[in-house]
């Protein structure tokens, strides 16, 4: 295993320590492993808390700041945070208007956020939860734990964050977040496995001439393994299942091409070009795009594509100023 780390069990704490020193806009509680805004939001505004396993940076800690999250709870690598952290963050950021929990649909994340929400309710903090579940690689049936929450989470955090900043109520922000979550679909692929520091070796073996289609963001192997193919053939492998699951034709979308951690920007832009070409052929208009490594899986090489149904309201929130280490414009 080749990584810029010390003891694998200290990775998360040490990274948070470095982040605290590097990012003056953040305040980091390295003990509780919660990343806060250095300047809390005004009283009376809805707060947003997210979190999850570490190893997906900049998600979520890198999305704390004006126009996006109020706090992010960092679990161990690929392990959801514990209720204590989530409760501490929820209490701390509540400005009297309630707190929205943004949770990716994984058994562990859902259970830990659920326990924290139960405890927060006992404290009279109003909590609502939106669970993202946009990964079309997983069938949503009684045969699974439901779809995984992936790329749309970034878009939910941006859009709900803008609405919370503008002063919408908890019910309104939560409804908006759910609308975004429901209007987004994603599909990912991996060229290589990631290596979890504590495990010390790649989570799965992938021969030089094969790739995994339908992977998650925790090194879960994909739904199927296929021979390596050029970008022009990978693009439809990702896009077709998305379009087969939700009808995007005729409308506008936000198109998000995401790198899994070890994918050069050169390749991501190239991939975006392939996706954009296919969307144009199908008459789907891209209103906004986002290309970069925003939701990663440690050192995995690969990418994911997320499409989100857009309308004027969503685009207005999307364009609103945001000022976080990971996403920043208009301010």
């Amino acid at each position: 295993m080749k990584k810029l780390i010390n003891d694998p069990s200290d990775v998360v704490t040490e990274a948070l320590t470095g982040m605290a020193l590097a990012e003056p806009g953040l305040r980091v509680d390295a003990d509780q492993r919660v990343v806060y805004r250095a300047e809390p939001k005004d009283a009376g505004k809805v707060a947003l808390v997210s979190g999850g396993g570490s190893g997906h940076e900049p998600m979520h800690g890198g999305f704390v700041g004006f126009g996006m999250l109020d706090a992010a709870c960092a679990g161990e690598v690929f392990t959801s945070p514990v209720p204590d952290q989530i409760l501490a963050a929820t209490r701390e950021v509540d400005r009297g208007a309630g707190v929205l929990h943004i949770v990716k649909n994984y058994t562990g994340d859902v259970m830990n956020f659920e326990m924290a929400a139960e405890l927060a309710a006992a404290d009279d903090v109003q909590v609502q939860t939106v669970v993202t579940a946009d990964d079309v690689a997983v069938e949503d049936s009684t045969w699974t734990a439901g779809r995984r929450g992936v790329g749309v989470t970034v878009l939910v955090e941006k859009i709900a964050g803008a609405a919370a900043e503008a002063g919408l109520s908890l019910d309104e922000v939560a409804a908006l977040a759910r609308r975004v979550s429901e209007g987004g679909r994603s599909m990912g692929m991996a060229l290589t496995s990631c290596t979890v520091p504590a495990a010390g070796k790649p989570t799965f073996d992938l021969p030089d001439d094969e790739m995994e289609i339908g992977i998650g963001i925790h090194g879960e192997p994909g739904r199927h393994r296929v021979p390596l193919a050029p970008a022009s053939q990978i693009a439809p492998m990702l896009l077709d299942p998305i379009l087969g699951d939700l009808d995007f034709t005729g409308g506008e979308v936000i198109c998000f091409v995401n790198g899994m951690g070890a994918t050069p920007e050169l390749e991501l832009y190239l991939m975006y070009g392939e996706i954009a070409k296919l969307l144009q052929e199908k008459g789907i208009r891209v209103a906004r795009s986002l290309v970069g490594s925003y939701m990663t899986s440690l050192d995995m090489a690969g990418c994911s594509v997320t499409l989100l149904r857009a309308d004027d309201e969503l685009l207005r929130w999307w364009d609103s100023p945001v000022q976080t280490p990971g996403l920043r414009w208009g301010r």
Partner: protein
Amino acid sequence: MPATEWTVPLLVDWIRTYADDVAAAADDLTALDSAIGDADHGSNMKRGFAAAVTALDEKPPATCADVLKTTGMSLVSHVGGASGPLYGTFFLRLGAAAGTETTVDATTFGAGLHAALDGVRARGKAEVGDKTLIDALTPAVEAYDAALAKAADPSDDALVDAIAEATKAAAIGRDSTTPLQARRGRASYLGERSVGHQDPGATSMALLFAAAEQVTR
């Protein structure tokens, strides 16, 4: 000398022994989780039970409930993931059933196991056959019941025998997960590709009963 009932030191011994066992088995558990999950079950369990042992060392428990609740809270607070809330709930429920005494007899422990199983099922919503730790836990609880019922007039050996039966059943339950297609947890994302792999959580659950057998025997 076989134990006739759980005592505070015996319960602490169980947790300690299991902490050592999961630390020793951490790489194997993680390897199982690499195949159908996210390669962290070993480190999760090791971290959680190390925290439980530390907590028990720092504030020596007075009652059986103390041991089990401290363990449960440590797991909830230090593990995260799926196994944190599930194993945490298991011990919190078992502790609630144990009451504020310094001993727990075989019957009360059996009732505690039922409460624990119910709690884990409520939290995780998994059924037998979903390829989770429920597949080891459910038959273990059933085997415990059956053994206890057989010991018509609860004898000195009732606890030890029931735990031994539970351990055997847990191991069989663990093995039964291999051919299954997962329906809960991360492994379910793999669809048919989950078939042929032993479930990591069922494996650690079988180890938990084995540790109980070891300390009571």
